[in-house]
């Protein structure tokens, strides 16, 4: 079947009962997407499906034909990190880093929908991404800084 990942077509053979997380990691060697619980509780495997965040461990690859998949591999350009990635670095919002790809995808989806989310909106919309190192305050600050920077840039124009 044909999958569109980060704007590029990928022709893959998949089993009927195969999660998108497995396909990404095991068939396409796109190892940026992590698998934690493998049952839709932790959020490390978050990717965007038609711009909506999903747990890729709970999505059968078979159901993704013709849909737009975005993973952590597609967010930075060759020379530049995505603003959300940069903010995670600046705010030191990473300890072990395992949940980070999922956190970043989740934050990107949030900021694409709400340019200036409230504290409560950030907490609610990122509540599906667990961080067992407990970096939540720094993750929150990172996401908030990207929103604030975007507004400032807009004001300067």
């Amino acid at each position, binding site marked *: 079947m044909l999958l569109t990942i980060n704007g590029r077509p990928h022709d893959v053979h998949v*089993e*009927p*009962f*195969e*999660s998108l*997380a*497995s396909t990404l990691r*095991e068939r396409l060697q796109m190892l940026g997407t992590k698998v934690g619980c*493998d*049952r*839709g*509780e932790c*959020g490390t495997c*978050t990717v965007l499906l038609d711009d*909506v*965040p*999903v*747990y890729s*461990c*709970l*999505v*059968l690859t*078979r*159901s993704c034909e013709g849909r737009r998949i975005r993973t952590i591999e597609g967010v930075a350009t060759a020379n530049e990190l995505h603003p959300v990635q940069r903010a995670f670095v600046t705010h030191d919002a990473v300890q072990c880093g395992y949940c980070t790809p999922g956190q970043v995808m*989740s934050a990107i989806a949030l900021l694409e929908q709400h340019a200036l989310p409230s504290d409560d909106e950030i*907490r*609610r*919309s990122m*509540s*599906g*991404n*667990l961080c067992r190192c407990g970096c939540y305050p720094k993750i929150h600050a990172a996401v908030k800084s990207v929103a604030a920077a975007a507004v400032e840039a807009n004001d300067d124009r």
Partner: protein
Amino acid sequence: MTLPDVAYHRATSLADACRLGEQLGSEAAFLAGGTELLPDYLRQRESARHLIALDGLSELRGIAEDGDTLVIGGLTSIAEVAGSPLVRSWFPALAEAARAIGSPFIRSRATIGGNFCRAVPCADTPPAAVAAGARVRLVGPLGTRELEAGDFIIGPRQTALVAGEVLTAIAIPRQPAASGGSYQRFARRKGAALAVAAVAARVVMDGPVIGDVRLALGAVAPVPMLAARAAARLRGERPSAGLFALAGDECAGEALPITDVRATAEFRRDLVRVLARRALAQAVQRAEGTA
């Protein structure tokens, strides 16, 4: 996760889904959002060899008014139920129950039909629907039939569905005048946590006294359970904190909780006592238009 021995079918129509389901019988499971079904394979609670994907049946998706009924298609996502202005105006407690489920990424995929058909005792939307007097609409080998929401779930992970039968809609009746609802739940966190106990209420006021009451208890019995003794105690009485406390005690006595990884049976009984009080207070406030 990859399981090798499962075949994947994508239903092209409701009739096709029913036909496939009937043919394959207990070997088949219908796949909607997959947020419960897919992990159930890992937990070895599900072993169907055929998955019949329903995602192509767009006619089962959406929320619409039909006379005195609000029809919520079985494939409507939990996120849509939670955010629907129609649900909020017909019976806000159902939207509140939907909003309590899982995390945002679970809610965007999980369906209200799935929440009923997987029939997990701690599911959030069934108690709220039972309190509202909702019915479920089924289509399959028995034709089209409608059951009371409370009669649809018959045990933990057990429903009245026969092979090849699909839940097409949850039908919410127009709520009586001077009525109000509430959904109160307790979980370890505000996000991404299963209910430890929940109480859904619908109160209909009859002037200064309580007319009809429906109290549905969640996560403290094998099925969303109507607390009949508590309701009997409330009818004909003037609402007061003391009365709600008595009703809470009745609910705690009627509940049939178990001890599991999330809580002990005793703690669940105590929760029911408190949640019932809160649910009644909010439902009465809403019925009187003061909330």
